[in-house]
């Protein structure tokens, strides 16, 4: 309801005059117009451009306010006295606004809160689904601002623009003022009304941005073009020359090929040894200590967006919802986005049935190609309000203090740090051979390799989840590449190229390790295909890349990203040759392995492979998964699987580059838990 009653009119006018915002003449003009046309004085003053909305409400906030939110809720019987007392106590701890705390706790529905807020500000509460806005008033170029800040132009009444808002703060009013660029007044609505309506109206806009923003703004970084014409030309020339050289000098050229492969694998091994050693430094495990977490003041914590892309994962939804609820972070500062595909009714319905608290928001991503996780995340970015953001998967169980650790890690890191990668590991460690291998591999990757990459300034291929971003930089980078099926890896390299730092921290998210070989092959083939995409994208201009990454960064990229691909593709060829030689004692290969090549090959076969097996052992030892250590001896079979996935990925890169091989989750028989410490891996469900 807007202001009515003669006494109030006088008081508004007097207040504005006394603040010097309008003159007596202007007040008289407004009163005259009110007499002529009727309507509230404030409305007339605003629509006559006598004063800006911001100044108007700055001067008159107390005038409009009726009661306190908490009291109003108690008065209406929506909240008990006890809850209010608790909320006030929590407010002292968290430093959040009372309404946000009550919403986050789920004590009052967002709709009811909207109504109360409207009463508090003595403004109308509008159900946008019933009273739809005038879409001609929407500026399409500002849809992202609307969705991020939760307001939208609603209608024009009496010549004055009415803007629907979810909350009323001076900062928001200032932003609205700057965005709409004309005098306005506001009405109150609930946040889901705005979110749903903007998705309905702006779905195609957000989709377009999610899919094409990077390709349009920075095409050189988009994997939408798999091979550039220059790369194809290079490939053609290189292959032609190779065939010619092979035809003219078959033995020397094969010797050179063997030598190149052997040296590459040797250096690749060397890099991994260095990473294993550097990553084993004790301080990486104590980068953020428990004491620092305890000393953190919750009132200083920023709003944190948690992106939760899911697709046909209704079964895992309750687990992740519970895991997020139990995060040691003020709930009122969590902005959780359940990012669901529009056609995924199963998960959408499951989410609705769970009756999630107000901190959870369902973002429905309209159907469009490519149907990939990065596209979904890009879409959700438009609705995200956090200063920091992270991604979790449906089957994740992050350690409860992870977000706080990320905040501390950012504070302790150099200013150019754009993202902090948490560690990933598995809760179903001992489920079968594959989960054991996968656990050791992940432990090696996240507990040794990534900290070492960070220390050595080599681009870090981010993991799929638990990477914590500064939101402004993430947006500045154009989000993730929706065409890249390992968008995380690509983004890590892209951030480094742009001069940002990618850091790591000592907090673990436990996931479900793939326990089925076909499912694992699907997942791994996508990862390797994505690595190939990322490699091709960043090697379009190798000299520029060299300049941006420096010596160590460039060669680290070649061996860490390129080496992973090359190893996967070469392993079966080399194993096959070796087995053939072993079984048949053939001398066919002898001319191609002169002594110096033979020695390097022998070194790679015996020492390098042996030490790589040992690294797997160490990964289990460091995580105190002692039971895994003997299993490390079987890792060569895992490498064979890796190669299988590598060839599948290569095939798909050529035939179906943007296809997202979906990994099925929820296959485990183990309990989802983050309590996988001190040598106690997860347990089977009872």
């Amino acid at each position, binding site marked *: 309801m807007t202001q009515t009653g003669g006494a109030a009119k006088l008081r508004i006018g007097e207040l504005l005059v006394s603040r010097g915002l309008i003159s007596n003449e202007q007040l008289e003009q407004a009163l005259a117009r009110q007499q002529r046309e009727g309507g509230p004085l404030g409305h007339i003053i605003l629509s006559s451009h006598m004063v800006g909305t911001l100044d108007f409400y700055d001067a008159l906030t107390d005038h409009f306010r009726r009661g306190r939110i908490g009291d109003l809720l108690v008065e209406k019987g929506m909240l008990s006295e006890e809850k209010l007392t608790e909320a006030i106590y929590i407010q002292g701890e968290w430093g959040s606004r009372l309404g946000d705390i009550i919403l986050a706790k789920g004590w009052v529905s967002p709709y009811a809160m909207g109504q109360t807020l409207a009463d508090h500000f003595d403004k109308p509460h509008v159900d946008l689904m019933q009273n739809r806005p005038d879409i001609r008033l929407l500026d399409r170029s500002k849809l992202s601002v609307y969705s991020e800040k939760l307001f939208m132009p609603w209608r024009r009444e009496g010549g004055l623009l009415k803007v629907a808002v979810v909350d009323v703060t001076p900062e928001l009013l200032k932003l609205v003022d700057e965005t709409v660029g004309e005098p306005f007044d506001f009405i109150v609505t609930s946040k889901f009304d705005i979110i749903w309506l903007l998705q309905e109206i702006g779905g195609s806009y957000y989709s377009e941005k999610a899919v094409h923003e990077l390709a349009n703004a920075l095409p050189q970084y988009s994997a939408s073009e798999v091979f550039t014409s220059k790369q194809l030309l290079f490939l053609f020339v290189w292959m032609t020359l190779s065939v010619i050289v092979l035809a003219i000098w078959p033995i020397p050229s094969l010797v050179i090929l063997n030598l190149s492969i052997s040296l590459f694998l040797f250096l690749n091994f060397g890099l991994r040894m260095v990473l*294993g*050693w550097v990553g*084993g*430094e*004790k301080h990486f495990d104590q980068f953020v200590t428990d004491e620092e977490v305890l000393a953190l003041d919750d009132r200083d914590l920023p709003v944190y967006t948690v992106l939760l892309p899911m697709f046909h994962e209704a079964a895992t939804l309750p687990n992740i919802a519970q895991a997020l609820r139990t995060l040691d972070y003020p709930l009122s500062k969590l902005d959780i986005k359940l990012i669901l595909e529009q056609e995924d009714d199963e998960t959408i319905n499951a989410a609705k049935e769970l009756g999630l608290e107000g901190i959870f928001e369902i973002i429905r991503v309209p159907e469009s190609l490519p149907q990939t996780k990065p596209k979904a995340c890009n879409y959700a970015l438009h609705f995200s309000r956090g200063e920091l953001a992270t991604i979790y998967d449906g089957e994740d169980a992050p350690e409860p203090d992870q977000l706080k650790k990320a905040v501390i890690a950012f504070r302790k890191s150099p200013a150019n740090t754009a993202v902090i990668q948490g560690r990933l590991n598995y809760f179903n460690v001992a489920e079968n051979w594959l989960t054991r291998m996968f656990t050791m591999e992940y432990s090696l990757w996240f507990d040794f390799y990534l900290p070492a990459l960070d220390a050595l300034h080599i681009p870090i291929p981010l993991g799929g989840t638990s990477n914590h971003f500064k939101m402004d930089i993430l947006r500045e980078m154009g989000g993730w590449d929706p065409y890249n099926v390992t968008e995380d890896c690509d983004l890590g390299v892209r951030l480094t190229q742009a001069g940002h730092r990618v850091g790591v921290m000592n907090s673990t998210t436990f996931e479900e390790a793939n326990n089925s070989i076909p499912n694992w092959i699907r997942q791994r083939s996508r990862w390797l295909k994505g690595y190939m995409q990322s490699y091709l994208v960043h090697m379009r201009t190798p000299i520029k890349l060299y300049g941006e990454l420096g010596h160590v960064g460039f060669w680290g990229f070649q061996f860490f990203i390129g080496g992973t691909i090359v190893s996967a593709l070469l392993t079966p060829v080399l194993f096959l040759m070796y087995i053939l030689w072993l079984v048949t004692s053939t001398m066919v290969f002898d001319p191609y392995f002169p*002594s110096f090549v033979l*020695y390097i090959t*022998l070194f790679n076969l*015996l*020492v390098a492979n*042996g*030490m790589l*097996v*040992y690294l797997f*052992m*160490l990964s*289990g*030892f*460091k995580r*105190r998964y*002692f*039971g895994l*250590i*003997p299993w490390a001896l079987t890792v060569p079979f895992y490498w064979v699987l890796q190669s299988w996935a590598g060839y599948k990925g290569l095939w798909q890169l050529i035939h179906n580059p943007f296809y997202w091989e979906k990994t099925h989750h929820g296959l485990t028989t183990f309990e989802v838990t983050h309590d996988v410490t001190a*040598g106690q891996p997860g347990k089977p469900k009872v």
Partner: protein
Amino acid sequence: MIRPHSVANTFVLVSVTLLMVGITIWLLSNGFQFEGATQRWATVVGALGSSDVLLENLNFLQPHLPLYVLIPFYYIPGLDTGAAPYLVSVLSAAILLFMWDRDLREVDISTFRHALLAILIVIHPAFLWAATSGGYLVLSMITFYMLYRSAQHIITEHDIHSYISLAVVFLFFFFIDGSAIFIFVALLPLLVVIAPLRTIMVSPASLYLIVGTPFAFAVATWGYMNWIFEGDFLYFITNADSAFMGGMLHIQEYPWLQQYGGQFFMPMIAATGYMLIAYPVSIYLLLDTMNNSYRFRASFVLLLHPLIVIGIATSQYYLKHPFEILGLISAGVMAELTFIKMQTKREFVLLVVFLIVSSAGGWWLFAQSGNPQMQQWMQALQGDLHLNAEEDADLAVGLWLKHNRQPTMLYDRDAFRVIAARGDAKDLQLSFSRDFKMHVRERIPNVAQIAVPDPGTIRGRRDRLNIRYPHLYEHGMKGFRLVYDHLGWRVYRQNHV
């Protein structure tokens, strides 16, 4: 507070290094030659001088790293006299001292104390012998030093680095010293003293796997290399010439093995006596650390480990002399000194006294029980050893071959001193070479010269050329004439050459 590294400390170490160089020159000028050093140098010279430079030419009967460190010196002009192994020994000893100096910074001691400790370490005969004799014992000492540092880190830090270090040190140890297997096995029971109790209680197997796997890989790798190049996985422990066999096939030459070979406890007890004389400082360190659990565990391992090694190695007829292992205690003591706090004057004085007593005991023990080479070394040190080059058969024929350069067949296994005296292996057709293998298939080899030792000697009987051509030494061969006959060596040359 850790003192900034003082220039004076560096000066002391450089001086000590120069002193060791001086002693080495003095020893060599007095005619001292270490058989092992000559053999290693000859192996390197033979392999690198061959027409096909192949890894397998170094043979797989001895650890390879002591050979690899000699390779760069082969290409340095002026070192063809065989001085390279001695140079490597001194340089390695200097490296060990500098490593120790770096680690000693963790202990707050003055430059004077630092210098005093360095001198007392170096003057111990075990250290000086290792540093100046041209053997690879000093490489083993470096490894042993790192091994103990790793063990200390496991005790105090038990971080992943210390476990990796220990495991990788063992891996390298296998490629440095044939006794590494005994050093490894002897440490296994002591791991329960080193590792944190919690890990031992939860999963002892994992601990042993983490520490032992690289070593197991090293052994397997060596076996595989033997299989690839020699056709037998166990070639390195079945061949009579193998250094990995230790003294097993020559028990009669070694009093220690004659007395204790095949036993475990008796050599341990005897070695304890040796240690009490040559390293009473170990006992002092143990007693001094009684009140500190961490330090005590490290000292306890330092005391017991070498004794167990000696027991096992002797029981397997490997160990020729207890000082082969006891000498490593010098490195262990060095590591121990980086770990203890010498805060009080009393503590430091006692330590110095025990180091002096250790040195004195060591010299006495060396004089009383040293093997023939050690005795020669001591004589040379005193300036009493004067070998007559003209009476040295190998040296004489080697020098003759140096001045009569022709393609020459020579069975190298026992003729390493000949090769070392010649200075290089250019034009020598040694047993691993294709030419040698091709020629021995012929009734009359088409080679310019053949050199053979007297078949009446042990060496002559083992010489493959004598075995292939049994009448060659006595009667020559059709188409060849005798061109050299001196002190049991004959060289035949083709008539038309």
